[in-house]
């Protein structure tokens, strides 16, 4: 009798728990408090967006959007390009990705508008920015994704932080292999990749909101985050202190030779005409790299002065974070960068001005 009563109470408890979680799930989904993940683990780049996924992003900024059919941010654009359409590919990290602002306020949106106004031609700017990508990832993106879009110009936006690769990140590891660049994709066997994949699979059962949170915790070292909460930060500090010198465990600055190989590739592509690469110095890029790019005849646009001009006027070009490592460009910063890019592209002759020139320069249009 007592056992029966206990079982009944247990069943009611379980039922109430499940009902509560379902209510919570409904709340999280409708309010967007926890959006389903719009990105997934990817075997090529380690990170890819899910085509058609809804984007509800909150961090230093906010964006409510939808990933386009091609897995990119921005409007739906067909890969096949109509004649006369000017196309610019933007390759970079989270600064270019611009998840912090609605599309019209990002570098992509403003650059597209500015170029359209200045050239009078239809312009498409393709956002190939991905958070946490570095110099070598840009090279891989340019080699693979950018080519598919056949742009007139590919802008590769570099920053000081772009020259560090972190072995703890889910993504390929680049190394020198004789005359070529080797790509190690062993990350697909890592625990985090596998767990992330499995958790993503739970989306099929509609558990994505709470699951997203769980996934987040796993990505940050779930046991640390869940058990210690904010103390994870202290644990992380201790970890870094003890394991800093351990090979392969700490972020490392890219080998100079590796950087030079990539710059050689860019110069070669420019000569061949397979891709027109223009480097963008987004700030803090070391002088040796800038010199190396110049020696190879790679065009470079420096947007640092535009950002400095903003600062001189007392306008902060970055989102303000009390504690943070990436201070992304805010609306003012994105606007300044985009306008500087548009101005430089047109004045340096990287892009044609006027419809007649557009038709002439777009033979690659498919």
């Amino acid at each position, binding site marked *: 009798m007592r056992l029966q009563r206990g079982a009944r109470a247990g069943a009611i408890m379980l039922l109430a728990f499940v009902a*509560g979680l379902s209510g919570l799930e409904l709340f999280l989904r409708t*309010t967007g408090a926890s959006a389903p993940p719009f990105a997934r683990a990817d075997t090529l780049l380690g990170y890819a967006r899910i085509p058609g996924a809804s984007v509800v992003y909150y961090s230093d900024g*906010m964006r409510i959007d939808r990933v386009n059919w091609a897995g990119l941010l921005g409007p739906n654009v067909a890969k096949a390009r109509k004649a006369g359409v000017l196309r610019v590919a933007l390759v970079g990290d989270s600064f270019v990705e611009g998840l912090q602002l609605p599309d019209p306020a990002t570098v992509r949106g403003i650059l597209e508008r500015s170029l359209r106004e200045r050239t009078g031609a239809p312009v498409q700017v393709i956002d190939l920015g991905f958070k946490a990508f570095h110099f070598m990832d840009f090279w891989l993106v340019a080699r693979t994704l950018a080519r598919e879009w056949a742009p007139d110009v590919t802008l590769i936006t570099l920053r000081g932080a772009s020259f560090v690769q972190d072995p703890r990140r889910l993504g390929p590891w680049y190394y020198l292999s004789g005359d070529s660049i080797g790509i190690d994709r062993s990350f697909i066997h890592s625990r985090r990749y596998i767990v992330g994949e499995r958790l993503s699979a739970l989306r099929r059962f509609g558990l994505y909101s709470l699951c997203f949170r769980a996934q987040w915790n796993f990505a940050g070292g779930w046991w640390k985050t869940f058990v210690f909460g904010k103390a994870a930060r202290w644990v992380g500090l201790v970890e870094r202190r003890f394991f800093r010198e351990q090979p392969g465990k700490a972020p490392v600055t890219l080998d100079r030779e590796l950087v030079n190989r990539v710059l050689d590739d860019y110069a070669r592509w420019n000569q061949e005409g397979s891709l027109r690469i223009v480097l963008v110095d987004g700030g803090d890029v070391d002088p040796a790299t800038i010199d190396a790019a110049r020696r190879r005849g790679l065009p470079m646009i420096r947007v640092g002065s535009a950002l400095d001009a903003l600062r001189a006027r007392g306008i902060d070009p970055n989102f303000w974070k009390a504690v943070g490592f990436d201070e992304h460009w805010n609306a003012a910063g994105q606007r300044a960068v985009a306008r500087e890019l548009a101005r430089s592209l047109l004045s340096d002759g990287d892009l044609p001005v006027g419809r007649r020139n557009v038709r002439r320069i777009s033979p690659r249009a498919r």
Partner: protein
Amino acid sequence: MRMRPGFAPVPACCATRACCAKRCPWFRMIAVVRQGSVPGYPNNVLFNSYVFLLFMAVVLPAWHVLPRRYRNGLLLAASYVFYAYWDWRFVFLLLASTLIDYHVAGAMHRQPVSSRRKLLLLISLVANLGILGFFKYFNFFVDSFARIGEVFGARPDALHLHVILPVGISFYTFQTLSYTIDVYRGRLEPSRSLRDFALYVAFFPQLVAGPIERAVNLLPQISRTPEPSREDVRAGLVLITTGMFKKVLVGDTCGRFADQVFAQPHVYSSPFLLAALFLFSIQIYADFSGYSSIARGTARLFGIHLMVNFEQPYLSANITEFWRRWHISLSSWLRDYLYIPLGGNRKGSRRTLINLFATMLLGGLWHGAGWNFVFWGGLHGTYLAAHKKRLGSRKAPYGFRGGTLADVLKFIAGVVATNILVLMSWLFFRAHDVQTTRYFITHIVSWRSAPFAGRVLEMCIGYGVTVLVLDLLEYCTGTHEYLLRLARPARIGFVAAAWTGVLLYMFSSRSMPFIYFQF
């Protein structure tokens, strides 16, 4: 000096990080207010943080284990540690306020001469309001006079001080003031125990953001050193659960949207602006009522019953009812210690309206040292005065009393109209400068839709329905502890589900400080 998308103005050096950020007092103060946490710096013990859970895990068992005569001492020590965790220096301010009012009230009680009693009251008022005035309003008045001075070519900028606003100063000042005034009016015997009085001022669950407790209610409970019953513990846990749910899952998530849009309104379209205003109205309610519930629940675990601070204000059918349901401890304080002493409704209808307006104007100023708060208070004063004028000698209706379909429709229309008025006023409360306010108004009025407006509408409906359901549960059951009405297994199941969500969010995102901490 520019206004930042937070709560405090930031000097240009902070904007450009020209200073050493960690040493800069501005950086530190604003970071604490906005982020709730800065590595290497002390912080508020936020209710929605693991530190608070650890704090309670130590204090609560220790309090239960101790003999009764030591319990208040422990609670007092814990309350001071709680406050010192933010900034130990301001503990002395709290202590000073406590000592002044304890001794003044004692002397007042012993003093038979009316004029001397008045003088003692004046000393207490000057001391308390002086401290509050300096820490909270000094720069506000200096800056306001500076603008006037600029017209005549004067430059009084040098008077501007970088004063840190002590957390909870408005709350504990009003609490100690009510004690002294009640003793002066002969409504209360002064406390004989300094320890108990100090605990009344510094009791940690309500120290930093209320409810602004009356000594008549709290002091006798403290003096008795109550033994919490099983009912108290159950109710306490349920209140903490609902409070945490409101704060972490409703308030904080709404706040993320509202904060972003208010920070850079010019990059968002009309639907986003209206949604931000709507979500801010939900955020401030969920945040503050959530805090009050956690405070009440925490106090119940120690056997202390704090007053109810919110009674489903967004279900009010008129503005007078709204103020009877919103931040009840403040509105009743303003009524008893400001509106009634000003004459209340006893000096004619015209004076009543002026009294109402003046009370709300000062109520607005209590919220923050800024003209936007004054305007917000003035707007509510105007609403209340207009409603009072319309009512005449009749009493404002309170709550839904049932009746015909026409009555139901009238009630719903009243609720909608009241909410629209309140929503409009929140714009002045949240937008800290005229430009932002103007931008919001012009872009909402000249409506231009944008992509994803549907998604934003869906989000607003989601939050609105959630808050409505939570309020209706309280409204219909007539209690905040409605979960206690459920059978034990069902209650445990729901509480466990709520805590699953709360913990996942609490530990995986930044703790957002309570909005009212800044007041």
